[in-house]
């Protein structure tokens, strides 16, 4: 038991060592979330699983962390006018049902003693799949259609609707049809289906689901990228809040985990967000993809360690997942500082 190595009495039932670990890990996750706009949070649940927290606590606390992070990020995106409240409200129903189905599945699998293993396998597939996709994009030199840091500076009408979204808008015309920002007209059922599928993933894995929901909003609904980002976060506030409440009722939300994680991540997100102004995201994306792939391997190693009862393998898995995130966060900070210093030197030379 890894947590017995670090355990003991402390604040909110968590030992000072674990509190420090969570604040530090939150800081790292925050830098990643602030910089890439997605992805940091889905390292939390696997890390908690590797620390031997029960699956409902790992997923429930991960979801409560996502809820808190989404509140903070939505406040910022609201100020930038990047939230489509109508789309968000329509999505809430589908997401809520999806989350509840996902949550019920976790408790059902837990009652069979299979939850930790199946969730870990799902994470290996998910992290590996998304990691491979991001790495392929980065190696191909294609920024893809992921978050564009200059998105805030472009007008919504400048965004082209992907062909697949146009096809869906033309073919699926089941009433009621709704008009969204950017004059997009789409069936409410398409929105609900996207919301349900991503809600299911959120409820099952304790993730915000943004890395699936945002591409789904862009490709299936045709929402402009910045609106997809802002609306996704707005929607996570409600779905994550409800999911956390449901998990909390079952004792699945541990404030001793969530509070220190948020303390670190809120600060890290500011640093990561500020770094986007001076660092080329495409240059770092390959590290991000690599981090997800290492994360997938780490979860696999940790699960094998748990299966064969090897604390050393469990520790290796934890070190890998935390280490990969730390390396990418440090790469972002180092690149940002180097870039700022170069700019400073150039400006000083020009002034001279």
């Amino acid at each position, binding site marked *: 038991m890894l947590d017995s190595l670090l355990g003991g009495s402390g604040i909110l039932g968590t030992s000072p060592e674990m509190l420090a670990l969570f604040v530090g890990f939150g800081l790292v996750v925050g830098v990643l979330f602030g910089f890439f706009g997605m992805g940091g949070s889905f390292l939390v649940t696997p890390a908690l699983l590797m620390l031997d927290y029960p699956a*409902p606590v790992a997923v429930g606390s991960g979801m*409560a962390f996502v*809820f*808190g*992070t989404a*509140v*903070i990020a939505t*406040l*910022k995106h609201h100020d930038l006018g990047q939230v489509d409240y109508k789309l968000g409200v329509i999505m809430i129903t589908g997401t809520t049902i999806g989350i*509840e*189905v996902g949550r*019920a599945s976790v*408790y*059902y699998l*837990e*009652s069979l003693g299979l939850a930790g293993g199946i969730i870990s396998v799902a994470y290996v597939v998910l992290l590996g799949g998304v990691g491979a996709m991001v790495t392929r994009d980065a190696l191909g030199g294609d920024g893809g259609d992921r978050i564009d840091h200059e998105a805030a500076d472009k007008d919504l009408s400048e965004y082209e609707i992907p062909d697949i979204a146009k096809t869906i808008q033309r073919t699926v015309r089941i009433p009621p049809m709704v008009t969204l920002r950017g004059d997009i007209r789409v069936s409410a059922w398409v929105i609900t289906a996207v919301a349900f599928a991503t809600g299911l993933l959120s409820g099952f894995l304790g993730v915000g689901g943004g890395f699936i929901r945002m591409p789904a909003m862009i490709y299936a609904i045709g929402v402009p990228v910045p609106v997809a980002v802002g609306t996704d976060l707005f929607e996570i506030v409600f779905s994550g*809040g*409800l999911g*956390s*409440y*449901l998990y*909390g*009722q*079952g004792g699945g*939300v541990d*404030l001793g985990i*969530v*509070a220190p994680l*948020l*303390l670190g991540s*809120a*600060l890290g997100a*500011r640093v990561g967000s*500020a770094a986007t*102004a*001076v660092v080329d995201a495409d240059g770092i994306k390959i590290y991000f993809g690599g981090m997800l792939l290492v994360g997938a391997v780490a979860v696999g190693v940790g699960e094998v360690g748990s299966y064969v009862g090897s604390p050393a393998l469990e520790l290796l898995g934890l070190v890998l997942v935390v280490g990969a995130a730390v390396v990418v966060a440090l790469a972002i900070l180092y690149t940002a*500082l180097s870039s*700022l*210093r170069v*700019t*400073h030197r150039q*400006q000083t030379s020009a002034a001279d």
Partner: protein
Amino acid sequence: MAGLEIPTWDPETAVLIGAILLESIVLYVGYGSLERLFGPYLMELLVGGETNAR
């Protein structure tokens, strides 16, 4: 716990989720204020001038 549930009112859980919501808002406002107060000083310390960060 297995099976779908309609959420029922649970004051203890509501306080727990409320505490997370409150912490998030306090952190957003608090870190924002700290950034305004100490951001320029920190940038000065790191790269030698706040203007270079913009």
